[in-house]
C-alpha cells in the first residue's frame, strides 16, 4: 500500500513553512506532503503546531513564509477567501457551528466550490443523526452531532481535500466510533484527508501515514503499517 501510494502525485506539498501570529513565531519550517486519496494525521503534543499548520493552509494566520502548494497552486500570498475555492474544506477544532443559524442553514452555508460534492440525502446516509433536525438551532445539537454537522457541511461543497482538526475531541467512545466510520467512508469515496488527532488509537484505525510534530516542525513520519514497530518512539514523542 505505501508503495502504491508513493507513485501517486502529491496533492498538498508544504515546504519550509514558517508561521507567525503577530510577534510570536509558531511554525518553524514545517515540511510534509499529502498524496491524492490519502488520510494523513498530524500527531504531537499540545502546542506542537498541528492546528497552526491547518490554519496556515487556510490562510488564517498573520504571516506565512515558505511554500504551501495545493495541486500545484501556491497558497501563500493568495487571498484568504480564494483558498477554499480551490477545493479545500476546513473543519475547525472548535467546530464552528453557528448559533444564529438552523441546522439546515449551517449545512448549506459553505458555497459549492466544485462539481462532485455529496448531495444532502447522501450526507444524511452518512450521518443519520442529522436527519430531521433541519430546523433545530445549530448549537442545540449535542457535541457529537455538531461535529458531524461541521464535517457534513464541507462534503456538499465539492472540496476534495478535507482538513479535520481533532474531530474526536471531547466525544464519547460510541460517537468517536461513528465519526471513524464516516471518515473511512469518505476515504472510500476518494477524499484526501489531513487529520489532527491527539487520540492516536483512533488515528491508527484510519490513517495511511502519521507526521509527528514538535515545536513547530515535523520531526518524524511513520507509515501506519509500521506504527507498532515504532510504538516506543511514538510514546516518547507524545509523552504518553
Amino acid at each position, binding site marked *: 500500500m505505501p508503495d502504491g501510494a508513493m507513485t501517486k502525485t502529491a496533492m498538498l506539498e508544504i515546504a519550509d513553512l514558517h508561521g507567525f501570529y503577530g510577534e510570536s513565531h509558531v511554525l518553524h519550517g514545517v515540511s510534509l506532503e499529502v498524496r491524492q486519496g490519502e488520510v494523513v494525521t498530524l500527531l504531537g503534543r499540545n502546542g506542537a503546531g498541528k492546528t497552526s499548520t491547518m490554519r496556515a493552509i*487556510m*490562510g*488564517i494566520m498573520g504571516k506565512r513564509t515558505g511554500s504551501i502548494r495545493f495541486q500545484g497552486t501556491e497558497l501563500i500570498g493568495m*487571498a*484568504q*477567501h*480564494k*483558498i*477554499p*475555492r480551490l477545493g479545500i474544506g*476546513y473543519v*475547525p477544532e472548535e467546530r*464552528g457551528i*453557528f*448559533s*444564529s*443559524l438552523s441546522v439546515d*442553514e449551517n449545512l*448549506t*452555508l*459553505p*458555497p459549492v*466550490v466544485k462539481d462532485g460534492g455529496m448531495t444532502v440525502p447522501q450526507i444524511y446516509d452518512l450521518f443519520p443523526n442529522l436527519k430531521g433536525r433541519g430546523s433545530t438551532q445549530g448549537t442545540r445539537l449535542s457535541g457529537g452531532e455538531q461535529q458531524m454537522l461541521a464535517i457534513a457541511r464541507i462534503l456538499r*461543497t465539492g472540496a476534495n481535500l478535507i482538513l479535520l482538526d481533532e474531530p474526536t475531541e471531547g466525544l464519547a467512545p460510541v460517537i468517536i466510533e461513528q465519526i471513524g466510520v464516516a471518515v473511512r467512508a469518505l476515504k472510500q469515496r476518494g477524499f484526501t484527508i489531513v487529520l489532527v488527532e491527539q487520540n492516536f488509537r483512533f488515528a491508527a484505525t484510519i490513517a495511511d501515514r502519521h507526521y509527528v510534530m514538535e515545536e513547530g516542525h515535523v520531526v518524524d513520519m511513520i507509515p501506519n503499517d509500521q506504527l507498532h514497530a515504532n510504538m516506543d518512539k511514538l510514546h516518547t514523542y507524545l509523552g504518553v
Partner: protein
Amino acid sequence: MVSLLGIPPQVLFGQLLLGLINGSFYALLSLGLAVIFGMLNVINFAHGALYMVGAFVAWLLLTYAGVGYWGALVVAPLVVGLLGIALEKSMLSRLYKLDHLYGLLLTFGLALILEGAFRHQYGVSGQPYPIPDALKGGQNLGFMFLPNYRAWVVVASLTICFGTWFAIERTKLGAYLRAATENPTLVQAFGINVPVMVSLTYGFGVALAGLAGVLAAPIYQVSPLMGSNLIIIVFAVVVIGGMGSILGAIVTGLGLGLLEGLTKVFYPEASNIVVFVVMAIVLLIKPAGLFGRER
C-alpha cells in the same frame, strides 16, 4: 365621539399618529445601526449625518436637477450607500482590529465634518421640501384626519423594516450575514469574501438612513442639523432594543415613538425625557437590552 379619560379622541389619535411617524424613523434608523453594529462592531455615529445627507440629496436633486420625490427615493439611498462604502473602504476598515471606541470616534468626527460642510453651504435654517402630488391631501377617518403622506411614511417604513428583517432572518444572503457576524474568520474559510460583505453591509445600513432622510424631507424641513436632533434618541432606542438586534430595533423604535406620543397627551412635560427614562430602567433591569443577548 366621547372623550377618553378626559382627552378628546382627536388629540389622542393625532398624537398617536405623530408618535407612529416618529417611531417609523426611529425604527428605520436604529435598524441600520443594528445591522452595522452586528456585522462591523462599529457604533456608527455618522448615521444621523448620513440621514441628513439623504434628505439633502433629495432637495438638491429637486432644486438643481428637477428630479422629484420618487426619483430621489431611489437615487438618494444609492448616493448615501456609495458614500458609506467609500468611507468604510478608505477609513473604517482600518480600525476593526482596534477597540470599538476608535470606530465611534471616527464616525463621530465624520458626522461633525458632514454637518459642518452642509451648515457652511446652506446655513441652519431649513429648506422646505414639497409633498409629492400623488400623496397630497388626506382621509377623514371619522375620529381623526389622516394626511396621506404620513400614512405613506408609516407603511413604507414598516414595509422596509420587515423586508429587511425577512432578508436577514429568512434568506440565504441573511444566513451569510448572520454567520459572518458570529464568526467572520470561519465564513472566510468557506470561501466567502467577508471584507466585501462588510462594506456592502455598511453601505446598506447607511442607505437605510439615506432613505429615511428622503421620507423625512417633506415632514421635517431639510436642515443640516436634522440628523443630530434625532440620533441621540435613536441611540437610546438601540440600547433599549439591544445592540445588534434587528427585531429589537424595529419593535423598540415603533414602541418608543408611540410611548412618546402618549406621553405628550397625558403628561406633556415628560415627553422629551420619557425615552431616556425607559432606557435607564431597561439598563438597570436588562443591561443587554430587551431583545439583546448577554455576551
